[in-house]
């Protein structure tokens, strides 16, 4: 678990840095308007980048949540359910994110 | 058979006695008012004597030491650092003892061997380069708490009960016979009586107090000594002064420290011993003569504890004159049955002390069970905690 947390964390350094810079710091006014977002996401590389970020950040965040919950003294049996629950939650989040990105992207194609 | 014996004190003597008793098939209960080794046994110099230190003046003690040294090497190897010791002559006065020392060691059966000064300095580069002679002996170093825990762990494995934080408050008599002890559990404050066929007083410098509860007298002279541990291990071997035992004449290396000791003065109350400042100064000045720069690296700890020396009538002095050998008192001689005191001695001779007192107990009970503690390896000290 530790190694995956570290690995996704290091990936995030790159994924998130570029996400922040491209979405906020090189944009006039700091935030994209609706039209800008649609145009931005229609670039296939950007789309792939954001999807990768979505997956990695969700994994990193939920592994972190589990680590904290484990430190509240969760029993192994509870942990099994916790793992299943968090996996489902992760799939839900990633599904939602993909659906949303695809929807926005399709409006620009 | 299954006679029940209560041992008072879980220092080295009590621990070894419990082990010996358990091995000979007795039912054993050890009562100790504090932690294991929280008295004299914990706080000593950690020196596994070769006997060299007493060879010239106290040959009886020296013989006991070398015999026990060799036994302990076999039965508790993981509580010992075995790197030998050096007796070094710092001046002409020391040098004049050399032949006498070598002869005395030979007399006592201690394998002592003079080595060239150059070789001694190569082995111990921090040693004062001005030393005049060096003699190598099989000294060693032990870890005091683990020393006691090993005996107790093995005793426990053989059925003994060890009650720590349990203080003896009185003796229980049946007529003129001690039939048990009244103890107070310091954790709960509750008192109870533990019956016993024999009670062994192994309370070290507190043996006099315990004996007083039984209305008898033991000539224990609590004789304190100061030791100073520093932040660096300067020597690999134990460094002794080649002379008669005196103040501040031995530096014992252990783990990452070196310990200079000791001094000697009689104390009334061994519960708390204030450390005389002049003793600290004396020890540090003395250490400087063996290992120049001894305190570079800082002083880590200063401590004092009382030895349970056995007084001899007519011998007063400061305690250096008292023998380091041990003695067993069967208080039947004082008119009290069922009560035996074992005291004096060194930690190195704890096993022999146990053998002697259990022999006395066996004789009292009309049993003849041979002692086996010299050949039975002890459990590792951690086993003590496995059985709680």
């Amino acid at each position, binding site marked *: 678990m530790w190694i995956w947390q570290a690995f996704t964390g290091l990936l995030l350094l790159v994924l998130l840095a570029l996400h922040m810079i491209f979405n906020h710091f090189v944009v006039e006014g700091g935030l994209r308007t609706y039209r800008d977002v649609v145009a931005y996401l229609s670039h296939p590389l950007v789309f792939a980048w954001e999807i990768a970020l979505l997956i990695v950040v969700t994994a990193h965040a939920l592994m972190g949540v589990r*680590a904290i919950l484990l*430190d509240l003294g969760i029993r192994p049996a509870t942990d099994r359910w916790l793992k299943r629950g968090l996996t489902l939650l992760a799939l839900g989040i990633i599904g939602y994110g993909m659906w949303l990105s695809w929807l926005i992207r399709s409006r620009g194609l | 058979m299954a006679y029940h014996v209560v041992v008072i004190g879980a220092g080295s003597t009590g621990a070894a006695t419990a082990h010996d008793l358990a091995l000979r098939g007795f039912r054993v209960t050890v009562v100790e008012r504090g*932690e294991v080794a929280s008295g004299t046994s914990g706080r000593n110099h950690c020196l596994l004597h070769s006997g060299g230190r007493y060879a010239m003046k106290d040959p009886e003690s020296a013989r006991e030491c070398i015999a026990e040294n060799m036994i302990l090497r076999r039965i508790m190897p993981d509580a010992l650092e075995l790197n030998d010791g050096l007796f070094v002559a710092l001046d002409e006065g020391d040098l004049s003892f050399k032949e006498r020392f070598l002869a005395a060691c030979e007399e006592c059966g201690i394998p002592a061997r003079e080595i060239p000064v150059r070789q001694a300095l190569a082995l111990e580069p921090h040693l004062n380069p001005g030393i005049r002679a060096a003699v190598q002996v099989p000294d060693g170093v032990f870890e005091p*708490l683990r020393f006691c825990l090993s005996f107790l762990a093995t005793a426990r494995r053989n059925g003994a009960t060890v009650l720590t934080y349990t203080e003896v408050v009185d003796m229980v008599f049946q007529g003129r016979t001690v039939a048990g002890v009244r103890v107070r559990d310091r954790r709960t404050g509750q008192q109870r009586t533990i019956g016993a066929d024999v009670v062994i007083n192994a309370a070290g410098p507190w043996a006099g107090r315990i004996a007083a509860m039984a209305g008898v007298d033991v000539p224990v002279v609590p004789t304190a000594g100061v030791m100073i541990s520093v932040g660096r*291990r300067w020597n*690999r071997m134990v460094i002794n002064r080649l002379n008669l035992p005196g103040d501040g004449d031995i530096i014992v290396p*252990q783990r*990452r*420290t070196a310990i200079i000791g000791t001094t000697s003065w009689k104390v009334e109350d061994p519960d708390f011993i204030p450390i005389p400042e002049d003793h600290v100064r004396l020890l540090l000045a003395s250490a400087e003569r063996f290992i120049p720069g001894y305190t570079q690296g800082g002083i880590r700890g200063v401590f004092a504890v009382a030895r349970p020396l056995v007084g001899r009538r007519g011998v007063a002095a400061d305690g250096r004159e008292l023998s380091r050998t041990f003695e067993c008192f069967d208080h039947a001689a004082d008119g009290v049955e069922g009560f035996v005191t074992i005291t004096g001695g060194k930690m190195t001779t704890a096993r022999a002390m146990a053998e002697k007192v259990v022999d006395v107990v066996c004789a009292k009970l009309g049993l003849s069970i041979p002692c086996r503690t010299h050949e039975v390896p002890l459990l590792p000290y951690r086993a003590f*905690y496995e059985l709680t």
Partner: protein
Amino acid sequence: MPTWQLRLLRGRPGNPPRLQTYRVELPAEAYLIDAVEKIWAEQDRDLLFRHACHHASCGACGVRVNGRERLMCITPLREFAPDRPIVVEPLRHFPWLGDLLVDVSPMMRRMMAVGFAVIRRDELTADRPLPEGVEKATRFEDCIECGLCLSACPVMAADEAYLGPATLAAIERMLAEPRGADRGRLLALADDPHGVWRCHSAMECTAVCPSNVDPAAAIGRLRRYLLAEKLRRWLGGG
């Protein structure tokens, strides 16, 4: 002679503990263990505390002093101001037996499971010739099994099954200087959800260690051994 104020945690399991103030007169050259022993000798015979060697070799007298894990025997009183109370509490993450006393047996059982050998080669003087008849220079391991690192570790607070810094460091020492230990068994012991991966690198173990063990670094090295092992197995296909 200055008078020191000590606030010792007093109480027995079953009742909420409280801090009790004691005043004790001792020279500034004395150590905290002397103060506590003097309080026991002269003021409070019911005080429970562990101690033995008084020179940081036995590891018995670990407590928390003003919140920080220390060995009482090497904590000099001159570190403190006489007019400020010194708060002394028992170690955390061990079963509490009363006052300053805790039960160290859970840690000892883990050390026993590792089979941590206590005697090591003496590297301090290894470059010098050995005396005749002495085969190898030895000394005791650095780890004195005092439990300070367990008390300081935030993961220990959370997970009572966590092996703990001392035990993980012991595993690493056994691997670094093999003394008859089974490498595979030791690695398997460390490679556990409650083992080496549980550490969050709070580094408090190394910060409180009174005996140069550096468990945090040992845990890091253990992880490297394990990762290398896994990589080898993955590449080697078995």
